[in-house]
């Protein structure tokens, strides 16, 4: 029995904007299950009093001074987008969002 359901996989795929077929849903549910099972091993370790790690290197307080640096030329910036208009990136209209 999978700990992750087809519905959950479908939901995750939707959140990640991935198109997944019905067959793939079953396949991925099974594969994700294996991954989750393996990760459970880690949950057995006692981590009381251990600070969470977000970095592989023990760096803290890496800051930058508030000094402006040159930006990219606009032609180069816009060249990276699929479509532009009026010096802006053109994107399909956004549905079902704010009124």
């Amino acid at each position, binding site marked *: 029995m999978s700990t992750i359901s087809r519905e959950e996989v479908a*939901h995750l795929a939707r*959140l990640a*904007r991935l198109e997944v077929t019905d067959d793939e849903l079953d396949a991925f549910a099974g594969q994700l299950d294996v991954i989750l099972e393996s990760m459970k091993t880690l949950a057995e370790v006692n981590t009381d009093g251990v*600070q*969470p790690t*977000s*970095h592989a290197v023990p*760096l*803290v*307080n*890496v*800051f*930058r*001074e*508030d*000094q*402006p*640096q*040159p*930006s*990219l030329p*606009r032609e180069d*910036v*816009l060249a*990276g987008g699929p479509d532009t*208009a*009026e*010096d*802006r*990136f*053109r*994107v*399909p*209209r*956004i549905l*079902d*969002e*704010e*009124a």
Partner: protein
Amino acid sequence: MTKLNDYDKAVETYEPVLGLETHIELDTHTKMFCGCSTVFGAEPNTQTCPVCLALPGALPVANKAAIEATIKIGLALNCHIAEWTRFARKNYFYPDMPKNFQTSQYEEPLCENGYVDVVVDGKEYRIEIERVHLEEDTGKTLHVGGATGRIHGATESLVDYNRAGIPLVEIVTRPVPGTGALAPEVARAYTAELRDIVRSLGVSDVRMEQGSLRCDVNLSLNLPGEEWGTRTETKNVNSLRSVERAVRYEVRRQSALLDAGERIFQETRHFQETTGETRAGRSKEEATDYRYFPEPDLAVMEPSREWVEELRAGLPELPRKRRERLQAEWALGDKEMQSVVNADAVELIQATVDAGTSPSGAVKWWLGELSRRANESGEELAALAITPKQVAELQGMVDDGRLNDKLARQVIDGVLAGEGDPADVAAKRGLEVVSDTGALEAAVDEAIAANPAVADKIRGGTHAAAGVLIGAVMKATKGQADAGTVRQIILDKLS
């Protein structure tokens, strides 16, 4: 058609619980995680780089000035500054962020557990601050093809990423119960106080009309003694007046639904500036699944206690203290000062005084005639088309005897209509007090001739009767005479 209850009736039955989320754009020179300039109004997409466009391999580095500004805000709001804090990714797909996530903070905000005290109607309310965290602003989308430039009806959207990555501070209150009928006024007072605090720190220009301070208003209703209700979140609330109106509208709307036995959905609504309504937006269920995780590209932060204390020691005089000082300097009573604060007139009066007017003169105009005009047109006082300098000039003309109060009000008409500074308006409209005593004496003679019985009374010692003659002279001079001077001429002639 949305059914709305009468507000007073609604708050007799239900108890509102408020919650406020405020976003403040910091005025650092550069963005949060890259060196791109933040200058407002630049040509579209001229202030972007690999970091804020999220090109592969680009690495963000946090702006120290933004961290300091946020700590200062936290300190001014009586918060605890975290010993250990980090950024997190908030994942969502929306073209306003090229990264497909927003760098924000999740479980470890920079500042927590503070408060702001505000006074409404003589009563103090403590608004508890849950958290103050740092994130980045989004790009600006222009919706094309719709009738009004809004998303509704748009056929496509155009995106400018100049704003994407500008440091944004989010300040979240805990739920605020117990405000009763005054919920709208408390929400407004809190927003105004927060704005004034941040402005005093000099870390943002906090201009609501330009979007550098943006407000989301949460509101729920419950019956007395029962659990808190389901809340709605109203976005797009962009003036102090709108904060008040949005709360009022939601109280009226939600109470009508509850009266009808319907339930309130937890949803995002949008405030409509023109009508004062709130309208349903996207449903929340899908949107809240942001799958936050710690940002691996940024180092954690451990603000040292020395650094925090250094910033605390450098805090300026905060608004509450400043108001106490100004109240003493202006010699105002508590009630009068409260009116000044409620009218959002502290800065305007201070600027007028700085321009050379007596405090009483400045207070008189801003709380009197100008407040009345602002109320009539449904505007904020500061939005009126008259500057503190112009008010000072106006009062100067009154002090010099060139204008009386009645003429000054006509001059205000002209200034508000864009006819220029007070002196220009007075000249163009011919609104100076008649100081030609020859002309005044002639007008007085005419008035005496036209009112012989009144003149006799005054000759007989009843000076109070002079009012009738003064009125006649004022009428004859179209109000352009100084009443005191006229009175003196009348009494001289009739004694």
